[in-house]
């Protein structure tokens, strides 16, 4: 009997099904890796284990007894500690305070700082952070060290199951080695470790068992090392798709000057020498696993980031874009559909009309006074163009459905008639119908001469919509896929940074046949 078992777990978010009859067995003293592409249900699964999310259906059994977790605290009590990607540390408090926050040692009713420090030092040592001083405020630590503090904080609760969700994604190579040593020792101490990572070599190095998720279901569990990378990728792909994509034009490799060209863009350690070209009429995709620098790349192009090195050319002319205000100016004509429409894209309590015209007010006004007739006309035009369904343009945009909100956000930028459109995962969390309308719209815009750079976490969209796809890994472009080469296999394996010539050749052959 397994130490911890999940059986028949279902979970829906709105209309979207995140988990469908998923199950998982976790053994003590083992490292269990969980694999799957974006949106396969891994995160939801561990959130359920950690008490952050309640399942719709399904059972959890720990040491033969059925358990239920209503809150992170109750999961903690049962011995499950989770290290999330989003950090749960208190920035102004010291490392020691953070490690002992939920159960500090006390003497005479007050926190025993000496004992707390001892606990912190022990936990840090177990987590491989001996060099971190317990009195350092967390905000003074670099991200990689904070991650170690997170691990120490989890260990201080003496968990029996430790879940690491992308725990190494922010770490430098030297730190990763340390974590390996730590995790291996924890395994030998009898802890059950659940490990989610996108780095295949990490999994090969560390895992005892692997489970692959696809479409919210566990599709295979195998002993680590018994399958080749290629076989693993085959297991991960094959999602069921129900979208219809507009036909792509037969690609004519153009020799024209690209509308948007970037050369050797670098920014802090998040972007590394990225070069790209986007022609008029082209939809270029950005692929790769989430968080590999795609968001930063779009922000850098749009003039939001400070200290970007490299060059950006518009129509072959070198331009320095230092603010969104410049980026949207007629000479450049750029638009960015940001990732988080609720805080970065729209002003939810404001009306549909005011949101739509917000970016274009400059051209709808004279001497700062808004020309309401032309505003109304322009608003009606885009509402019609995108068939936005609303009870009235004076209602707050927050009252619309997610799909219609996203349409408003895109329409808002179409009102400035941009020539370059940057999109940051625009279909996340919206319904299938709206998605299809957006695919049609993108193609229509491209056909009318816009240059489109489109980041999506959904591989099917990249395959269905894009003429070319740049796959990012760790802030750099790892691969460029063109036309028929854009396959799920190629996208997933390059996103995981598995580059084997023979596999690629094989994939091409398969397509050719």
């Amino acid at each position, binding site marked *: 009997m397994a130490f911890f078992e999940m059986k028949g777990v279902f979970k829906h978010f709105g209309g979207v099904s995140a988990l469908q009859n998923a199950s998982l067995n976790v053994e003590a003293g083992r490292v269990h890796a969980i694999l799957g592409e974006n949106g396969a249900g891994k995160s939801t699964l561990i959130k359920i284990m950690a008490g952050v999310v309640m399942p719709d259906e399904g059972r959890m059994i720990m040491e033969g007894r059925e358990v239920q977790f209503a809150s*992170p*605290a109750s999961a*903690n009590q049962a011995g499950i500690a989770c290290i999330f990607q989003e*950090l*749960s*540390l*208190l*920035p*102004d*408090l*010291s490392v020691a*305070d*953070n490690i002992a*926050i*939920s159960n*500090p040692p*006390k003497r005479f*009713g*007050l*926190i025993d*700082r000496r004992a707390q420090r001892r606990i912190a030092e022990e936990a840090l040592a177990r987590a491989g952070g001996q060099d971190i*001083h317990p*009195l*350092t*405020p967390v905000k003074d630590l670099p991200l990689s060290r904070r991650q170690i503090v997170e691990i120490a904080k989890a260990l201080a609760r003496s968990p029996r199951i430790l879940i690491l969700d992308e725990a190494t994604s922010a770490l430098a190579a030297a730190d990763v080695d340390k974590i390996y040593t730590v995790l291996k020792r924890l395994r030998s101490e009898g802890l059950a470790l659940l490990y989610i990572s996108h780095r295949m070599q990490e999994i090969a190095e560390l895992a005892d068992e692997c489970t692959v998720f696809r479409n919210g279901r566990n599709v295979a569990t195998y002993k680590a090392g018994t399958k080749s990378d290629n076989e693993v990728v085959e297991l991960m792909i094959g999602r069921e798709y129900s979208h219809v994509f507009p036909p792509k034009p037969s690609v004519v490799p153009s020799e024209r000057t690209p509308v948007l060209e970037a050369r050797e863009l670098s*920014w*802090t350690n998040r972007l590394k020498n990225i070069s790209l070209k986007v022609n008029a009429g082209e939809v270029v995709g950005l692929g790769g696993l989430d968080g590999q620098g795609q968001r930063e790349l779009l*922000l850098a192009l749009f003039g*939001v*980031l*400070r*200290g970007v090195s490299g060059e950006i050319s518009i129509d072959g002319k070198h331009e320095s874009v230092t*603010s969104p205000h410049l980026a949207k100016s007629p000479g450049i004509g750029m638009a960015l559909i940001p990732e988080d429409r609720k805080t*970065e894209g729209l002003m939810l309590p404001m009306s549909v009309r005011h949101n739509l015209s917000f970016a274009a007010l400059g051209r709808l006004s004279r001497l700062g006074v808004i020309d309401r007739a032309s505003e109304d006309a322009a608003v009606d035009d885009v509402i019609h163009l995108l068939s936005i369904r609303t009870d009235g343009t004076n209602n707050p945009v927050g009252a619309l459905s997610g799909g219609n909100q996203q349409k408003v956000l895109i329409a808002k930028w179409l009102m400035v008639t941009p020539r370059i459109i940057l999109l940051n995962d625009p279909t996340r969390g919206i319904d299938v119908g709206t998605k299809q309308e957006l695919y049609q719209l993108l193609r229509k815009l491209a056909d009318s001469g816009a240059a489109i750079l489109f980041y999506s976490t959904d591989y099917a969209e990249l395959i269905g919509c894009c003429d070319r796809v740049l796959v990012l890994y760790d802030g750099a472009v790892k691969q460029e896929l063109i036309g028929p080469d854009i396959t799920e296999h190629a996208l997933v394996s390059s996103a995981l940074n598995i580059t084997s010539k023979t596999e690629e050749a094989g994939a091409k052959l398969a397509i050719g046949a």
Partner: protein
Amino acid sequence: MNEWRYRIGEHRQTLLAFIVFLLMFVIYVSNHPAGFNANVVTTAANKGVLLALVAMAQTIVVLTAGIDLSVGMVFILTNCLASWIVVGSLGMTALGVIGVLLTGSLCGALNGLIVIYGRLQPIVTTIATGAIYFGLALALRPVPGGDVNSTLADSLTGQLPGGIPASLVALFIVVLVIWVPFRRSEIGRAVYAAGSSEIAAYMSGVPIRRAKLVAYSLSGLLASMGGLFLTFITYSGEASAANGGTYTLYSIAAVVLGGVSLFGGAGSAIGAIFGALMFRTIGDLLFVFDLEPLWQPLFQGIVLLVAVSLGSVRLFRIRNRLDLFG
């Protein structure tokens, strides 16, 4: 060595406030040896302690990432109350003192309850409750007057043997009895945690609501100590709206000068005490530069303006301009 660096780093802001205050003080004393006698120091210390108590009250609320615009009014209300009930025999006086402190704590707790359970913004809540507290003060003392147990008053506002101002010793005891245990208790740390990042605090199972309620109540308690002390200095109670407003504004200034972050989660009431003493000394420093006393408020204002602008140095480190905007 290394160890000390971290120990000092932990209290960097407080130490900085202390050093700046010390510097000002030394400049003042070295230029005015004649003005430096026990009586002058005692008067200055009493004024400083008044603001220091109110600044401590403000600090505890600011630590939760809130603000209390009613501290000045609680200060005034308890002053008026004390001028009625802190009189008579030893027992009566003691009961009176307890009554005053309890009233202050209740005022603070009321602010806390409205903010936490009424889910109103601290700033508007305390504007409104401030009006209520001032109204109560006015009801108690429509005209200035009253009395206070003068033995107690004199012993707390006078000098100890050796010329040490008794008020400073009293302040020290308040820090020792209230602030230090609070800072080192679990609830005190919860206050810092809630102010630092409410979401992370929730994820870590910190009792956020309880922490905030304690913070607001303690703030009321400290403000009432200020009110009590004001009564000891003036021997009377006065419901002065101008005084209340001034102390509220000065308490925020002292908190900022004392290195307490207005975004919550960082700083110490001890820093705020030095901030208060600093703010008081700035005015007196003008004598050193032979400026007319008339220039004192302007000088205070400009120092405050420059001090708060210094914080913007952090803007140069921001690499993603989105981080500039909430």
